[in-house]
């Protein structure tokens, strides 16, 4: 896989002379499920070549945002452009330019890794030879090449995660959506993926990284957005956020922003409640 090629097959991205157009542009994004407003007006612009951390408590609207950006969910209000294409108007153009690693993805257990990657490659209309070359290269990096003819049902959670990441990288997309990509990975593999994310960003790819793992977000992401109840409550680099919160770690900043000043005391109360119920 050639990561040194110019980034985008898309207009306006990563041009040297003028400031690059944002690879993701979200304006007044709103979405509701029946009576619940999940996204309450998100505004966001994302430059190419950054690792972008998108974090928030459960139910904050992270997955909904990702589903909208990847063209999986419609019926939203507002303007959403990905790689220069309006998601509502031309979702296929968007899908051609993104890679997606969902959290807890279901895979066709009866296919082998090779068959699964062939399927993904063909759905993206990659020439067979290129698909094979890339698949072998990426799998070799993940030390999975020897398992290429194993059925997915025989793989561990970490191996599946590597297969998913391989599938997302196969067509060399300029924008990658990673939802808890380190889930199930052992220490070595997690380190590899973190380095890979950095390397991809250095080569101009943009990473949209959703996670609950604050340590990783803190170390990997160039820019972090925290959302709660469908609204952005913080946006900046880790240094900016920790400075603003004056609480050191991102976990503390997150707790402060999502649970308020009494977060630590609140946790203690709840722990006491649980332990007390065991007595």
């Amino acid at each position: 896989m050639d990561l040194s090629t110019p980034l985008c097959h898309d207009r306006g991205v990563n041009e040297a002379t003028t400031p690059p157009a944002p690879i993701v542009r979200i304006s007044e994004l709103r979405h509701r499920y029946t009576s619940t407003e999940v996204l309450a007006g998100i505004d966001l612009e994302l430059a190419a070549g950054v690792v972008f951390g998108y974090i928030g408590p459960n139910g904050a609207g992270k997955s909904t945002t990702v589903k909208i950006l990847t063209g999986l969910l419609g019926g939203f209000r507002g303007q959403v452009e990905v790689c220069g294409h309006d998601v509502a108007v031309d979702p296929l153009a968007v899908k051609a330019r993104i890679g997606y690693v969902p959290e807890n993805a279901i895979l066709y257990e009866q296919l082998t890794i090779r068959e699964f990657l062939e399927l993904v490659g063909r759905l993206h209309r990659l020439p067979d030879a290129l698909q094979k070359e890339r698949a072998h290269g990426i799998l070799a990096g993940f030390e999975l090449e020897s398992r290429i003819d194993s059925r997915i049902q025989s793989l561990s959670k970490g191996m599946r995660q590597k297969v998913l990441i391989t599938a997302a990288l196969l067509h060399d997309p300029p924008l990658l959506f990673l939802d808890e990509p380190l889930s199930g990975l052992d220490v070595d593999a997690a380190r590899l993926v973190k380095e890979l994310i950095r390397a991809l960003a250095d080569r101009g790819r943009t990473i949209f990284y959703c996670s609950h793992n604050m340590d990783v977000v803190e170390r990997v992401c160039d820019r972090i957005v925290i959302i709660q109840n469908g609204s952005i409550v913080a946006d900046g680099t880790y240094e900016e956020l920790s400075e603003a919160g004056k609480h050191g770690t991102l976990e503390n900043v997150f707790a402060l922003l999502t649970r308020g000043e009494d977060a630590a005391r609140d946790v203690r109360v709840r722990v006491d409640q649980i332990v007390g119920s065991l007595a």
Partner: protein
Amino acid sequence: MSFEENPEDPSPLESPTQGEDSGPRRGKRGSRRSLAKQAIRRERRARRAELLETTALRAASIIVVILSPALLLLRADPSAVRAILGAQLRSEFRRQRGVTERNTFIMKLAGGLFLGALAAALLFVIPIPSVWMTLAQGALLIFTVFGTLEAVPHLLIDRRDLAVICSAPVRDLTFFVARVIEIIVVVGLVIGSQALPMFIAGLIKWPTLPFALVFSIATLLSGLLAVFATLILYLGVLRIFPPQRARDVILFAQVGLTVLLFGSIQLGPRLAGKQDIRALVESATAARDWIPPYYAGEWFRVALGGEMADTRLLALAFLVPLLAGLGALAIASSGLLSRLGAAEGGGASDTEVAPGNRQRRGAFLDPLVRRIIRDPVERAGYDQFRLLSRRERGFRLRTYPTLALSVIFGVGYLFNFVEDGPPVFNGSLLAIPVYFAYLYAPIFVLQARYSDDGDARWMFDVAPISEPGRLVAGMGVGLALCFLVPVSLVIAIGVVAVGGVEVIPHVLVGVAFIAFATLFTVEKVGPGLPFSEPFRPQVGMTNFGLLMLTGVVQGTAIGVHLVVAMVPGAVWGLLVLYGVLARLMLFRLRNMRPREVDVRWFPTGKNSAAMIAAIATARPGQVSSVDEALLDDPEEP
């Protein structure tokens, strides 16, 4: 303690929005009344389902109470049995309601009533009580064995509670007894529905207490025997084979039994020299000890005042189910949970494919496939179907027997010519069985939508596919090339063997028809992406209406063939015609619009309007998909 402590508990598997999806379908103002009617219907359905659930829970509760002393004797824990059973039965019955709230368990019961009524009608002409009872119990035993074979694997190895139970201090026998009672309750309700019409028919013929008693007890014993025998088979296989292999062995046993049953019905009388069934039943004296339905027949004969000639048979009626039960308990008493846990967990080594071997199966088709399919997306659809149709257990179980049945019917047809000499008409009459390969095509198309991993369809959703029809076309080619055309060719070989080389043109016409008709069926039955819907056990094999329609298409094609064959040489024209039609149909599939394939392919910004439009034009096969799409995207007003 009873199970129905909190019948109002909503199942975690049910969506709070379920059933509220029909608003947009109705559209305009006049729909209020129909919405109200729908609400009433939904409420009735829910009440029926609740009643069924409560009945099952009560029945299970009574069984546990009755069996408590025996359970304690076996060192099984009755309260744990009750807890496992309560959770399982609630979950099972609520799952049966499904996402669309159509309680398919009630439909299963209705199907059982129909099947029982059919058997009762067929048996009504049999005047001899013992023969009637033997055949009735035989039919019930077969129904039960098939029902149990289908129910046991998913009830015994149930992911929902297996992990919890395996990690809790639960003895093997406690778990086993809970599962057996669950199976008996679930299967018992279906057997009851099948037995009821036969019971009524028998009561009309012999309105006596002995009949009622013998039939009821014999039905109970038949049911227990079927359940225990199936459990012995399953547990035995689990002991002998590694977990992953065990699933395959069970699958082949299920397929084999289906083929054996229908094959013996179709070919048995021919092979036995066309004796009638009654004579066969009466003459099989030597084998009686080994055929349980005879026990019931003997009991009925004695109950009606006949001489007690064979006490061994009478004793066997009780002994055999008892021994089967003890046998199942003995096999299950040690290591059951660990084996089931392993079967659930899977094993890596058994599922690996040796590098270099993967192309072996079906590789000879590749040059042909490359000629037909050039587009990568279409090839993806073909490969997806080809690979998963060989590996998906549910698909294989539901479709493979039909292939064997087509061949059996074909062979049965050819017997006429073997026995009665060469055809008097012409070769076209002999080529008719080639068309039999098409009979079950809709089953393949319907089942090809479902997969145990149907939720993996997200990978299609996230891919930039502008022509989803290509995927459907690939599936159609796969279905034709991997299944139906080969089966028609197998039958064709038999036809040529009987009729000689002069029937070859007729045979070719039949094969060409199969190719065209397969693609036609894919288009008409309601195309969808291959293996892209989560498999639900309650999805029926097919619907009878569709099979009837297929029969009409098949019959028409045969009629056309016979007429055309009267004109010398015209059969070649028919061959070309079917070839052209197959080509056109493939073109049609490739160019299907997204909404004809699957509503979720719409550009997302237009979802609302597009879905409503899709609902308006949806075909019967697509409706559930539309419902689910709406549920998936519940922002609809």
